[in-house]
């Protein structure tokens, strides 16, 4: 969970998270056992474990505190009046980050699936060992009499038949589903091979036939289950990482009940029509209508605009907007999980549908492989009958072809590579949402970047203008009294210094106070000097000449380097932003991007992507805002930084927690390497089958040959998958 260290924390020092629990868990005087799961960031060593657990156990009424160092989750249980926020504060007080964690249903499902696969794999593994012990004397035992061979075979059947039926369940179910849907997948030949191998071997055992393939059936399942398990683990880790990011940014809201009482609720518990109070500095959790309060909203995550927007009653604010200046009273228009513009919702849906149509490399291979193998087996059957073999002999040969060509190595080829590549990405704090995301990322040839928050830091910074250092220092005296992002940018430029006296804040307008004994104002142009409202932050002494400070969103320090690396990989890059023309042009120039579009809406972003796609481009979309969500979902592949709005994180194939643009380049490089390894693996596995089919057709594929070939091809594929760079 190293990824969680240093992530942007919601609100000032996690206050919004801890207060979010006050309303839910602080049932005073209640002696019921209360439990809470917390996600703890930064705990990696034995001493962290001891410090956190003992600090939490010292809280009154605490019964259990157990930190899982592997997942970073702290499970606590207590009785009494202790508020959950006290637990969060205790952990934060030790210097770690903490956030309440709700387990996602997908994650528990994935965990259950994984456990089932582990048991199936262990059963198949033990059965393989047992059946091998029993098969070996038959293969190499020399002059063994028929009754002994029959005994050993019956014992092998006793192990192999129940073990295969148990371990193979997931394959049989998937094969049936695939046949019903009339889409061939690898599970069809796998299931067929296992069942035919068992039936053929039972027949051979009963009639004293030449070969029994009990060992092949269980070994096949064992190898394939390793691949399945790796795939399931990858998916579960991806869910867990995505949930962890979401938990760290979990939002809460203050709800005003009809009786006039306020209560703190989780964003997920907000219902349409609820009246909410949003204090300055708080992010709006749901789409809402402003009822009262004059403030400014920061819409960077929503539209990509850098300049704050003034709020007015009746205005619709979308989730993700940050209230800057003064408390607002708003009415929720939608629940949190439905909270986004209807248009964006439609774009998202369209994108999801498109992606579900993507066919994995493995499925493409299966579509060629399955008919080829089944035809070969049929041709072998007919051929041997024509050549005068008995029906039993011919059937035996056909079934051997199916067994020996069973895509054991093919089943391992993709998941192994995906797991190794995902591990490389995890080490760089990049989380994949699925294995096929890796395949899609590898094929991109065009990168579309969002500007605000993706190419830039997403924080305003003072840009040079028509003001002296003296003006800056004077303005900073007022700015030091405010948490407004523009004030903070002024302070960052002016560094430390004196503070103005008698400062009064005028919400939504600016602030006034005494700077070196003279009355001065800092704020919107209309507030500082009479006249029409003009952009920028204005400063003036009473009766003096107003000065304007202009801000810009500064570009990430690694942006130009990352863009150059992307170009070197042969990718075309363009900038697609909702911000104004001047800012987008400047950003594009600074990063070295030639093609750019400004003032883009969510629809025009999605439309531009569709246009590129119809021109045959495979587009990677990188963005963090609500206005990017539709484009992210619709793109061939997509990435979002860890600080993105929830909906964009969910829509993206890949999340990079650092926000560092070089992560995008690394992801493409690694996914391309992974695609090469996968292709090599499919080639290796197919080459083995090309050798094995003639052997089986000639009737030379004895169980020993099948066992050796199967193990060797699987080992070759595994070793090749591990050959990832660095």
């Amino acid at each position: 969970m190293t990824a969680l260290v240093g992530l942007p924390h919601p609100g000032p020092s996690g206050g919004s998270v801890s207060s979010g629990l006050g309303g839910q868990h602080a049932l005073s005087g209640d002696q019921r056992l209360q439990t809470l799961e917390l996600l703890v960031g930064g705990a990696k060593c034995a001493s962290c474990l001891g410090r956190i657990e003992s600090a939490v156990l010292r809280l009154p009424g605490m019964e259990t505190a157990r930190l899982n160092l592997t997942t970073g989750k702290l499970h606590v249980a207590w009785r009494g009046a202790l508020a959950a926020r006290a637990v969060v504060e205790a952990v934060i007080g030790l210097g770690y980050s903490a956030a309440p964690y709700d387990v996602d249903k997908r994650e528990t499902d994935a965990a259950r699936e994984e456990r089932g696969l582990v048991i199936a794999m262990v059963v198949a593994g033990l059965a393989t060992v047992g059946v091998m012990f029993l098969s070996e004397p038959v293969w190499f035992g020399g002059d063994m009499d028929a009754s002994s061979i029959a005994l050993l075979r019956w014992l092998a059947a006793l192990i192999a038949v129940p073990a295969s039926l148990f371990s193979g369940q997931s394959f049989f179910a998937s094969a049936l589903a695939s046949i019903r849907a009339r889409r061939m997948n690898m599970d069809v030949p796998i299931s067929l091979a296992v069942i035919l191998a068992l039936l053929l071997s039972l027949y051979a055992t009963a009639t004293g036939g030449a070969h029994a393939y009990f060992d092949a059936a269980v070994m096949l399942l064992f190898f394939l289950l390793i691949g399945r398990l790796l795939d399931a683990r990858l998916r579960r880790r991806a869910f867990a990482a995505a949930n962890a990011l979401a938990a760290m940014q979990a939002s809460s809201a203050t709800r005003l009940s009809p009786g006039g009482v306020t209560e703190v609720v989780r964003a997920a518990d907000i219902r349409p029509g609820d009246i909410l109070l949003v204090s300055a500095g708080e992010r709006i959790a749901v789409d809402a209508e402003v009822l009262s309060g004059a403030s400014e909203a920061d819409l960077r995550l929503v539209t990509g605009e850098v300049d704050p927007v003034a709020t007015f009653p009746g205005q619709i604010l979308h989730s993700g907007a940050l209230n800057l200046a003064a408390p607002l009273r708003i009415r929720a228009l939608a629940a949190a999980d439905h909270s986004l513009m209807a248009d964006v919702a439609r774009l998202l849906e369209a994108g999801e549908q498109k992606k579900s149509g993507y066919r994995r490399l493995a499925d493409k291979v299966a579509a060629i492989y399955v008919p080829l193998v089944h035809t070969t087996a049929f041709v072998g059957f007919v051929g041997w009958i024509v050549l005068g073999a008995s029906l039993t002999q011919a059937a035996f040969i056909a079934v051997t072809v199916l067994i020996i060509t069973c895509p054991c190595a093919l089943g391992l080829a993709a998941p192994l590579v995906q797991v190794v590549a995902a591990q490389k990405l995890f080490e760089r704090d990049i989380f994949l949402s699925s294995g096929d995301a890796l395949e899609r990322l590898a094929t991109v040839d065009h990168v579309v970047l969002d500007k605000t928050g993706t190419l830039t830091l997403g924080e305003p910074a003072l840009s040079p203008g028509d003001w002296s250092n003296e003006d800056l220092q004077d303005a900073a005296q007022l700015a030091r009294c405010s948490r407004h992002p523009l004030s903070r940018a002024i302070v960052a430029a002016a560094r430390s210094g004196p503070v103005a006296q008698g400062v009064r804040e005028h919400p939504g307008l600016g602030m006034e106070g005494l700077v070196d004994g003279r009355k001065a104002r800092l704020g919107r142009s209309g507030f500082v000097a009479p006249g029409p409202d003009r952009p920028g932050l204005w400063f003036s002494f009473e009766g003096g000449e107003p000065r304007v400070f202009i801000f810009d969103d500064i570009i990430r320090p690694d942006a130009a380097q990352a863009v150059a690396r992307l170009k070197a990989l042969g990718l075309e890059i363009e900038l697609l932003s909702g911000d104004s023309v001047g800012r987008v042009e400047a950003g594009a120039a600074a990063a070295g991007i030639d093609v750019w579009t400004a003032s883009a809406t969510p629809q025009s972003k999605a439309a531009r992507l569709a246009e590129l796609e119809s021109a045959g481009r495979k587009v990677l979309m990188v963005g963090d805002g609500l206005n990017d969500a539709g484009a992210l979902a619709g793109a061939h592949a997509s990435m979002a930084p860890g600080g993105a709005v929830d909906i964009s994180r969910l829509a993206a194939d890949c999340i990079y927690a650092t926000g560092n643009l070089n992560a995008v380049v690394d992801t493409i490089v690694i996914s391309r390497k992974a695609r090469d390894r996968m292709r090599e693996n499919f080639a290796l596995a197919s080459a083995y089958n090309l050798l094995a089919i003639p052997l089986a057709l000639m009737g030379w594929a004895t169980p020993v040959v099948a066992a050796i070939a199967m193990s060797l091809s699987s080992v070759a594929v595994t070793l090749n998958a591990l050959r990832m760079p660095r």
Partner: protein
Amino acid sequence: MNILLLMLPGALLLAMLALVGFVWALKSGQFEDPAGDAARILQDEERPG
């Protein structure tokens, strides 16, 4: 060869025991936190008495 009648059921029984043991360990959560378990053995007992 009669010894097989004793050996083979014995071997099967042992394998079944191993399987049951593993499933029990898995279900009782012994593979949930390998990193934490490794760290915990280094910790001093909080309250020796």
